[in-house]
């Protein structure tokens, strides 16, 4: 106990034991352990699912390395059973399962942990108990939000690690234009899964303070979290297509203008790699052909060019132009996006604490 606490105890010192933070941590755990256990079980189920899938694909990958089927990929008779699942088998399905289940964790963290945190106290009138004890209510509420928020961030980060680890061989071997930039994988990194869960939690706490009813606060949280995840990917997309794109003119790039057409450009939106030539690991944005005079070849003409026509095009003095984000910017975007979301979460959490401090019980 500090000297100040000694004075506050006024001769009636509580029994020694935990530190002040430890005591508030115990209070937080005891009040929210049902939600924490439930959320923990949900996260654990996801983790186990990803762990077993990850072990299976890594076993396949290891077998591929052992038999010389990968680096580079070789479709021999021996390798076919190892490689073909990555193209047409369950790993593809697994990736779509991941993008189906992982967004549920932030929603669950918000609905079941964040929304009831203060809404239930207001609803049951227990604020009149909790906020008239010796621990200042600002400190109590801020500590609860920070401790539970950190737990949510940690769980989100673990889930993100498992996603990235388990899909790694699939991204390396699939020919289905799967890459780390695509929606459905980009969001499920340790950085962004944690940030999304933290943001949903903080939003839910604030919704609980404002709405003061548990179920409506949960509903608002669910809707806002889903809407927020759509907006946040769009924000990222705007950055990826708008900020500091590199531009290359390289005949070797124009192998497979398979992207969707938009105006007279190909919207590529894929990673350069073993299937698509380009700067290694880069995310290709748009592409178009120019002729010998430097004029754009109309999309209609370009689209009708035969597949794998680089040589023909080069003979025609046409050049494929492409804009792209360097692969090294992947983590810049990750942290830019994640940092924005965490900052927003901090602001919302602080707003909730401020409202508790200021508003009536």
């Amino acid at each position, binding site marked *: 106990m500090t000297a100040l606490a000694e004075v506050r105890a006024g001769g009636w010192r509580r029994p020694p034991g935990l530190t002040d933070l430890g005591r508030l941590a115990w209070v937080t755990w005891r009040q929210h352990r049902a939600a924490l256990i439930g959320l923990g079980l949900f996260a654990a189920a996801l983790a186990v699912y990803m762990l077993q899938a990850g072990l299976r694909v890594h076993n396949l990958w290891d077998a591929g390395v052992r038999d010389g089927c990968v680096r580079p990929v070789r479709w021999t008779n021996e390798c076919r059973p190892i490689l073909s699942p990555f193209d047409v088998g369950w790993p593809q399905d697994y990736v779509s399962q991941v993008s189906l289940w992982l967004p549920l964790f932030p929603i669950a963290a918000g609905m079941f942990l964040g929304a009831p945190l203060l809404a239930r106290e207001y609803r*049951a009138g227990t604020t*009149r108990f909790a906020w*008239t004890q*010796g621990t200042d209510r600002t400190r109590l509420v801020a500590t609860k939000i920070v401790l539970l928020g950190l737990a949510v961030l940690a769980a989100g980060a673990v889930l993100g690690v498992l996603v990235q680890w388990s899909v790694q061989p699939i991204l390396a071997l699939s020919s289905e234009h799967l890459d780390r930039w695509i929606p459905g994988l980009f969001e499920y990194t340790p950085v962004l899964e944690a940030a999304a869960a933290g943001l949903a939690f903080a939003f839910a706490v604030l919704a609980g303070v404002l709405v003061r009813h548990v179920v409506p606060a949960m509903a608002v949280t669910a809707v806002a979290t889903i809407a927020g995840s759509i907006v946040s990917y769009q924000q990222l997309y705007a950055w990826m297509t708008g900020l500091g794109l590199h531009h290359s003119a390289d005949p070797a790039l124009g192998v497979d203008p398979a992207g969707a057409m938009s105006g007279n450009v190909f919207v590529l939106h894929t990673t350069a790699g073993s299937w698509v030539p380009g700067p290694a690991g880069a995310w290709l944005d748009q592409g178009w052909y120019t002729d010998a005079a430097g004029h754009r070849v109309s999309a209609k003409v370009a689209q009708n060019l035969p597949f794998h026509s680089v040589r023909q095009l080069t003979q025609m003095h046409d050049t494929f132009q492409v804009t792209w984000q360097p692969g090294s910017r992947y983590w810049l975007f990750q942290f830019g996006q994640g940092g924005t979301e965490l900052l927003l979460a901090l602001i919302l959490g602080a707003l909730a604490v401020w409202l508790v401090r200021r508003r009536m019980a």
Partner: protein
Amino acid sequence: MNVIETTSLGRRFGRAWALRHCTLAVPAGQVTALVGPNGAGKSTLLNLAMGLLSPTAGEVRVLGGQPAGSAAALDRVAFVAQDAPLYRHLPVEDMVRLARNLNYRWDQQRADRRLAALDLPRKRKIGKLSGGQQAQVALTIALARRPEFLVLDEPLAPLDPLARHEFLAAVMEAVAEDGISVLFSSHALTELERVADYLVVLAGGRVQVAGEVGDLLATHRALTGPATEVDQLGPAFEVVHSQHGRAQAQVLARFRPPAAAPGDWQARPVTLEELVLAYLREPGASALPGPEALGAGLGTGVTR
């Protein structure tokens, strides 16, 4: 020292004032009863005093000048809110432990002693206890905090007569043990007389009566006399409330000792319940200490 001091305190909800122009000083070392009809502003006053509401006008301080709801105040004030809100899903022992972890000041032995005396199953959830038991657990927590000032909002309302008796006995035991100040709001007029040293009557968001119970009882009389002569009682006897029969009138009046009742009138001492009821029936009447004698008892007289 005053345990509560308010200066022109007011609180508005929307357009309605729940409490207005409330200036009050409740001296320390007393058991103070706060009475008034529903909607008189009792809970509003107590919630303001605990910092659970912020004033729309004026200010409220506790324990000799501490701002209501400040850390310094909350260390020394314990509050049992209306309906004794506790965490219903927690077992009794965890509820008590939670309270211990939320306070710097805590007397675990007192908590243990009281829980043992109450004979509650410690593993039972709060929500499964009777209203009386919940109130006793809330009081146990409040008393284990060793407060200097205990504030209770309608603690007796949900209790049956036996539970009321036990609850008040526990409060009075703490008063005897520590000499703490108590402020409780109540509708239970019959219990008041047994425990209250000081009385505050609120009506329509204003303070109607404030004073020591002994002084109030010594300066009020129930009079019975001819209905036609009620007007002749003054100025020695100031009528608070009168009920007229055909010939006789029952009057509750305030007087300045040692004035004697006129010859046709019979005077007898009043009970606290009669006194409170008389004032509640006449919201226009008031008995307040004068500004110079704030908190010290009798003031200027009945005003109509």
